[in-house]
């Protein structure tokens, strides 16, 4: 008689170490945001707890093994069968049967294998169709140049809120906002500070902290027929309504959760018109206006660190 094992729990031994493991993991996750030493401490707690947990769990398995012989002796209460009886009772397997068994295995393996191949042929292109378009040909449509009209639209030292379509073909959904300040001309070179309004925390639209002069709004269409709006504003800084990130007038983070400064636009001046080019990410800005020293990096997503140890968390950027 075989013992009916279905009514008995086969659970590992009781252990409190999963709690320690969970604390360690939580500590690592908090540490990733707050501080690196906390990550190290958390990882140490997690590793030690995991080791002790596994030890506890495997100890439970060992005790079950110890129980085995007792149960067997209880079952074999009667006279023990001769040692050879077991083997003699086994049917002798003919060669043919062994062969047939082999063919069975072969056939089921071929069926499964063929099924896997067919499934792969069907699935791979479909999944590729789902995933690949998000990563291919991304760069071109993002680097559309935007004409913001003559630079006389931008009085020196005055921030302007500029809203424009980044990609007119896609419509309103690509409407972007930039805060633009004319820093005047130094050494015959015009200087502009052009801040993206995309918060460096999670991408909400950053708002100017200061009076917006709605009445002085200027609307015009570019040569391509896209509408551009310019509104003067006198901000003491910029703030994000979503989670309270704060920036100064150079776009440098002063408070809140953002991980770097506001992104900026490259610009060109063609026939006296201000043209917006690509965006790039900024970690910090030293100085102000035309004399500012900008620590520039390739464009990063919101919440991604561009400098410090944390940049290794995002080693490869998808094309954008």
């Amino acid at each position, binding site marked *: 008689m075989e013992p009916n094992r279905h009514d008995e*729990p086969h*659970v590992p031994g009781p252990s409190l170490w999963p709690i320690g493991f969970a604390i360690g993991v939580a500590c690592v996750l908090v540490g990733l945001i707050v501080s690196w030493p906390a990550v190290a401490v958390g990882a140490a707690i997690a590793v030690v707890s995991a080791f002790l947990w596994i030890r506890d769990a495997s100890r439970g398995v060992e005790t079950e093994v110890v129980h085995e012989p007792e149960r067997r002796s209880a079952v074999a209460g009667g006279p023990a069968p001769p040692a050879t009886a077991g083997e003699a009772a086994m049917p002798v397997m003919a060669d043919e049967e062994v062969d047939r068994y082999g063919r069975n295995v072969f056939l089921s393996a071929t069926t499964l294998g063929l099924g896997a191949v067919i499934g792969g042929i069907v699935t791979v292109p479909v999944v590729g169709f789902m995933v690949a378009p998000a990563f291919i040909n991304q760069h071109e449509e993002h680097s559309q140049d935007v004409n913001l009209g003559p630079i006389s639209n931008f009085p020196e030292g005055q921030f302007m809120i500029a809203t424009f379509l980044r990609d007119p073909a896609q419509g*309103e*959904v690509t409407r972007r906002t930039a805060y633009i300040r004319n820093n005047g001309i130094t050494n015959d070179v015009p200087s502009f500070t052009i801040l993206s309004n995309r918060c460096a925390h999670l*991408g909400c639209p950053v708002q100017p902290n200061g009076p917006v002069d709605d009445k002085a709004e200027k609307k015009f269409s570019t040569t391509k027929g896209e509408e551009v709006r310019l509104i003067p504003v006198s901000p003491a800084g910029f703030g994000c309504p979503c989670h309270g990130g704060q920036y100064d007038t150079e776009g440098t983070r002063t408070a809140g959760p953002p991980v770097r400064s506001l992104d900026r636009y490259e610009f060109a001046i063609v026939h006296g018109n201000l043209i917006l080019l690509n965006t790039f990410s900024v970690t910090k800005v030293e100085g102000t206006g035309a004399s500012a020293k900008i620590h520039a990096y390739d464009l990063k997503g919101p919440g991604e660190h561009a400098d410090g140890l944390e940049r290794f968390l*995002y080693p*490869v950027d*998808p094309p*954008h």
Partner: protein
Amino acid sequence: MAQATRKQTLIQVANYPLDWLEERSGLVGGVKYFLFRKVPRDIGWWHTLGSASLTAFLVQLATGVILAMYYKPDPNSAYESINKITNDVTLGWLVRGMHRWGASVFIILMFLHLGRVFLFGAYKYPRELNWIVGVLILATGMFEGFTGYLLPWDQTAYWASVVGININGTAPFLGPFLAQFLRGGSEIGPDTLSRFYSLHMLLIPGALIALIGLHLYLVVRLGVSTNPWTPDPEDEPTVDGNGRRGLTRPVARGAVRK
């Protein structure tokens, strides 16, 4: 005598379609087995939270199918079509309201169900796998809520999705790729809306239905656990007399019953 025979004949005739079905499929017996299976005698309202969640999900399925008949997943007409559903289509406000508020009801009921299972210890042996499946259902349900939130295509929807996608994007290593996959490109655009629509009404509901089926199968197979305050079943008659007593109540470790 003749009357009794006629009555029997009538019953036979009335039952004939069911008997026909049962003989060829066993479906009648199967449904009876599912609906009239034995459960512990003293379970109460707390044990109804699971089927309440299921009902909320069925409401979401039905109202969602109807909404899909009027909704247009296109950036230029999505907001207008939602306006039309709410203000113009007969009873559209009701169906959209049921879907919108029912989504919250579904999630809340799942959390209450989770709390009941946790506090009653019903996740213990042999039901650990069902707990895991349940957690997957909860996560899938919340993903359903996330993808559905973008569809009205108003400012709230847009910025909530921007933040939600960017939160995914801050995950180390694969985060930026995940965010770009969800957006269908480097910026939120028309592709994002149709992508979320497809996920919301085809992929995730399919996954949810499959997971709920597995969840129910495990519930039927393992039986329902009793309340933790029920006296030890050693003193109680077994639930189905088949020696499956151990499966209706979590067993304390070491307390092996024969």
